[in-house]
């Protein structure tokens, strides 16, 4: 049955075979043959129908499979025997049996059911001539040239010119020579040129070669360098297989969607196993409580606040620490004024836990339903338990005093008026720094001395320069001081190593004469001592003192400088005794002669300290006590007070400053000192309290250059310091007679205005003798009056 089945199969597949072939085979006529050939040629050309054909063949295949099943059932029905002689009969019978189905096929396809013909061969035997088998995939091998004539590439006319056929087709059939028309036909043909006429003869078939419209089109496209296939779009619309959006990361971090999850059956099984085990009690989900955890009934526990009833306040009764009642801001929907804004929120979040004033952030929720879980719940309850657990059982009375409240209240600067606040006058005229300045005891003149070697006298309020004298060409005037007392106007100035005594011509003739007498008295004293008789003014310097007082140059004498006195080294400090007869100078570099006390009336100079031994550096400045015969000498680190009457050391004051710049003695209460240091400290000493400073004031950024009490400190309790940072600072410093009360010191005002030159700011300050006005000398070449 195998051939049968194969035949059936073949039948099923070859439905496609053109009827023309069949006809051609049956007829065998040349015409039919040629037509079949033509058809085959055509079918080869019909490439545009390929798709259609493919569809058809699919349908047919499906039908075929039906047929297969049918045949299979036939197989089961029929025995598996070898076909006998009456095989045909059986075959026929089966054919007849299958007639219905075949007729069905016939109906479906409209094609002859027989695939073969029975012809008689030469021996008279039946010979089955099978129909053409159409492979069904003819369209597939479109690449291979369809050779209808199998004789090969030979000269047909040469070899077959004598025969009525021109070759053989694939089945071995003769391909008849196409009939050649008569001349008339050719003429007619030439007149009525069919479509696709080329005038050529296909050598393979001998027929006129005609080219169809489609082929012409193909040829044209080839000629035009186009793609031959019709309808081919070289520029199809781009299909975006990927998004044109540029992704930051090539890989997506999107979580795996749930729809991709495939529940594991294995895991389900294992879970179910555990569930079953738990249900049956084979597994205990929690540990059974151990013995330790069990309640120890031997320890009795008390809740001391279990039955708490409100009781009156009593030391033995300690009520439970209460939680504060919740406020508005603890509401889940607080009023908007309780809600923090962005800044508050950020501040709260940035703050440390200890610094937060409340341990939650008021948050607004639309409804109670939307309030999330409270994450601090456990912590809060724990803290509450701690509160209760650690609540004190004993009431302890604690001193609850703010240490600040124990300090005495400093009065406001407003209440301490008047004090200098603004610049009233600027004195310009010095070239270079102004080193020192002083207001005259009358309060109307200001004297200043500077790097340009001049001493200048100014009208204090208007700032008008009245008098000027150049003491030295190349040395700076380091100190200028007025002699105390209003009976005479005597000015002392130190330029370099020289001390000058000046009676400036600014006062009335009487006073001026008196001033001159005061200065010149010493000449007279010296004269009477040595060469008696000669007049005071013409006395030559005596030999007796090692460093004599002399008259200056006539130019200076004309200006009013009456006496000069050379010391060994540069004089840095100058201080008058209140009576105006003694003058102390300090020239730090002069070793044992650093400190000198001059007696004006006798023109006598003493060096009271043979050696300043172990006194903490070079001497810096010296002052007389305002009321008692006490003399203060400041060295770099200490201040010593000496009793002038008994000639002994009284006290060593240790301000703790590394380098004392200057100091001043309180004019009313001589037991108070202010000390300014180059280490930026201003120190107040109360000598009755200690040798250590009573108060340290650090307000300056740079070294302090000078400090000064107001001369009338009884009425105007002010003092001032000058610093290299260009500021002058005014302080209130009131000293009371009551020994129980300490001095009150209040910083009042920073006076700014002086410029800083080469790191130097304000070099000296002084007060007006009565008014709360101070004057300052600046390294910027100006003096300023502050009112």
């Amino acid at each position: 049955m195998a051939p049968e089945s194969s035949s059936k199969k073949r039948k099923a597949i070859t439905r496609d075979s053109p009827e023309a072939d069949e006809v051609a085979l049956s007829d065998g006529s040349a015409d039919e043959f040629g037509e079949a050939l033509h058809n085959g040629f055509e079918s080869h050309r019909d490439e545009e129908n390929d798709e259609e054909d493919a569809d058809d063949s699919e349908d047919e295949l499906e039908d075929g499979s039906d047929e297969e099943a049918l045949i299979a059932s036939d197989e089961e029905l029929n025995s598996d025997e070898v076909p006998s002689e009456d095989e045909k009969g059986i075959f026929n019978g089966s054919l007849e049996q299958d007639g219905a189905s075949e007729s069905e096929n016939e109906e479906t396809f409209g094609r002859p059911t027989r695939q073969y013909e029975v012809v008689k061969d030469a021996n008279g035997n039946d010979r089955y001539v099978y129909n053409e088998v159409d492979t069904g995939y003819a369209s597939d091998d479109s690449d291979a040239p369809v050779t209808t004539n199998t004789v090969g590439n030979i000269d047909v006319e040469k070899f077959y010119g004598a025969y009525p056929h021109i070759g053989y087709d694939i089945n071995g059939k003769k391909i008849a020579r196409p009939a050649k028309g008569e001349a008339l036909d050719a003429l007619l043909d030439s007149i009525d040129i069919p479509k696709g006429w080329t005038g050529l003869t296909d050598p393979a078939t001998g027929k006129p070669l005609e080219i169809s419209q489609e082929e012409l089109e193909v040829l044209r496209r080839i000629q035009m360098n186009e793609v031959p296939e019709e309808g081919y779009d070289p520029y199809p619309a781009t299909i975006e297989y990927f998004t044109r959006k540029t992704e930051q990361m090539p890989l997506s971090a999107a979580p795996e969607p749930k729809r991709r999850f495939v529940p594991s059956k294995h895991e389900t099984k294992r879970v179910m196993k555990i569930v079953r085990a738990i249900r049956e009690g084979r597994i205990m989900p929690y540990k059974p409580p151990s013995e330790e955890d069990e309640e120890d009934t031997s320890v009795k526990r008390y809740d001391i606040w279990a039955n708490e009833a409100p009781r009156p306040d009593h030391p033995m009764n300690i009520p439970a620490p209460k939680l504060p009642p919740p406020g508005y801001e603890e509401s889940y929907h607080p009023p908007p004024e309780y809600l923090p804004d962005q800044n508050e929120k950020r501040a709260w979040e940035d703050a440390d836990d200890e610094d937060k004033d409340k341990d939650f952030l008021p948050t607004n929720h639309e409804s109670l339903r939307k309030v999330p879980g409270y994450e601090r719940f456990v912590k809060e309850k724990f803290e509450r338990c701690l509160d209760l657990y650690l609540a004190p059982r004993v009431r302890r009375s604690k001193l609850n005093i703010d240490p600040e409240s124990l300090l005495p209240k400093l009065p406001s600067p407003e209440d301490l008026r008047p004090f200098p606040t603004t610049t009233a006058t600027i004195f310009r005229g010095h070239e270079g720094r102004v080193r020192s300045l002083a207001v005259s005891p009358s309060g109307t003149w200001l004297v200043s001395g500077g790097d340009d070697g001049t001493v200048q006298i100014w009208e204090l309020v208007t700032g008008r320069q009245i008098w000027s004298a150049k003491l030295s060409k190349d040395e700076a005037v380091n100190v200028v001081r007025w002699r105390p007392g209003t009976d005479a106007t005597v000015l002392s100035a130190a330029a370099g190593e020289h001390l000058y005594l000046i009676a400036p011509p600014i006062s009335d003739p009487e006073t001026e004469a008196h001033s001159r007498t005061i200065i010149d008295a010493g000449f007279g004293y010296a004269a009477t001592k040595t060469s008696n008789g000669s007049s005071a003014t013409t006395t030559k310097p005596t030999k007796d003192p090692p460093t004599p007082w002399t008259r200056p140059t006539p130019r200076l004498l004309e200006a009013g400088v009456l006496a000069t006195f050379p010391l060994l080294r540069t004089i840095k400090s100058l201080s008058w005794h209140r009576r105006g007869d003694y003058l102390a100078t300090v020239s730090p570099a002069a070793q044992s002669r650093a400190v000198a006390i001059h007696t004006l009336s006798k023109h006598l100079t003493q060096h009271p300290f043979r050696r300043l031994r172990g006194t903490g550096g070079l001497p810096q400045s010296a002052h007389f006590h305002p009321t008692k015969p006490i003399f203060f000498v400041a060295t770099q680190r200490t201040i010593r007070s000496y009793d002038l009457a008994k000639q002994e050391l009284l006290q060593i004051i240790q301000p703790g400053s590394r380098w004392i710049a200057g100091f001043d003695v309180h004019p009313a209460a001589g037991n108070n000192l202010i000390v300014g240091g180059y280490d930026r400290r201003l120190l107040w000493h109360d000598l009755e309290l200690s040798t250590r400073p009573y108060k340290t004031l650090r307000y300056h950024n740079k070294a302090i250059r000078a400090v000064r009490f107001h001369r009338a400190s009884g009425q105007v309790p002010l003092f001032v310091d000058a610093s290299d940072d260009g500021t002058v600072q005014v302080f209130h410093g009131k000293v009371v007679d009551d020994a129980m009360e300490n001095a009150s010191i209040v910083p009042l005002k920073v006076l700014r205005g002086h410029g800083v030159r080469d790191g130097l700011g304000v070099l000296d300050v002084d007060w007006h003798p009565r008014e709360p006005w101070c004057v300052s000398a600046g390294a910027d070449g100006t003096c300023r009056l502050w009112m």
Partner: protein
Amino acid sequence: MAGNAASPEDKPASQVRISLSTKQPDVSLAQNPGPILVNTNFRRYALSTLVNTLREAEKPTPFEFLINGTFLRTSLEEYLNATGISAETLLAVEYVKAIIPPLYVASYEHDDWVSSIDVISASSAESNSTSATPITPGQERILSGSYDGLLRMWNMSSQVLATSPSSSGGGHTAPVKAVKVADPSLVVSSSLDRTIRVWRYTEDSAEYSASLQPKIELYGHKASIDSLAVHRPSNRILSASADHSVGLWSTRKSDAPQAPPSLIPSLSSQGAKRRKVGPATSTPQRGALALMKSHNAPVSDTMFAPNDSTVAYSTSWDHTLKTWDLTSSTCVDTRSTSHPLFSLTALSSLNLLAAGTSARHITLIDPRASATTVSAMTLRGHMNAVVSLATDPQSSYGLVSASHDGTCRVWDVRSSRSDKEGRVGDSTYVIERESTKGQARKAAGEGTKVFGVCWDADVGIVSAGEDKRVQINQGKGIVGDQKAQ
């Protein structure tokens, strides 16, 4: 009423009833109009127009309006809102002639700082009634004293008519600190050289040349004489000196005693010998009638009492204002303030003295014995010591002050407000120095300090200062002309 007709009635602005009155008889209304209903959006200008309409004067005068002692600076409505006064009440409004903004007129340049200033004009001569020839307008003279020791007499076209002789010719040997005109032919000056000099001023008829001849030198003070006051009818001079004394002097040689010989430079000290002593001048040297010492600090300013030439006032750095009886040369009263006083002037009709202080303000002091408080009022605004004061010649409430901050300020004592420190006034106008116009103001008025100021009815406000100039500011008629258009 005319005022109502002028006011815009179309606006539904609220109205207030006011009653107009004045204390100045020359601008009073012919008949009392009674209460007038005015819009509350009226400002000073509208009210001024209203008053001028009511006065029916041919030339309108600018007025200021005082309500409850303060000047109206806003609209009536804002004033009522600010003070909380109901618009229903009758508002008593006093109108006064406005102080016209003093505009810059001219500057007279000097060689040195100008310390003081005085004016000879018809109105200033009126007060010193001895002058024989009345001064016609345009013949005003300005006398300035400078730090170069010279006095200069200027005419109104900024020409120096006369300069005092230098120190060698009998002039001051030190900066002049104060000048005063006694009458058009007599000038007094004081100086840092501790002298007061009386000068005879003569002018030829052609007005092209004039001369200042020393008449008397007065010796007695031992320090700079910072201020002078002259009473021509009694020929008395008052001086304030830094030697803590107030001097009383006579302008006549015959009245004055001999000068103390010790104070005359050429006779006294040895030092003076070396100084250049001028040729023996024939100027008579006289002493003081009295030197009154009671102050214990430099005396800054002095003046005769406005109505009584036997009473003098003086201010000092010792914070006090003293009243002196000149007949007995004793101090009769002392008023202590809390600051050094630098200058003094009198508001005679108010019985007040204005004193400029070092603490940058002006204190009004009632010198009468009955006064209970020392300081009646404080005028604040200056930024440095107030060193000179002058009163408005046309108003008994006006005042001009000169300060070291480089400005002059014009005040009206009626314009005041209450503060925690009592009544405080603010300046009406500020006169800057023309020399530094447009520049940034320097600290402490450096270079522009004003040392002296004088207010004359004809010339205007004349001020002198550190910028070596005399500056004239005048407000007369400028605004009035604009209003008339």
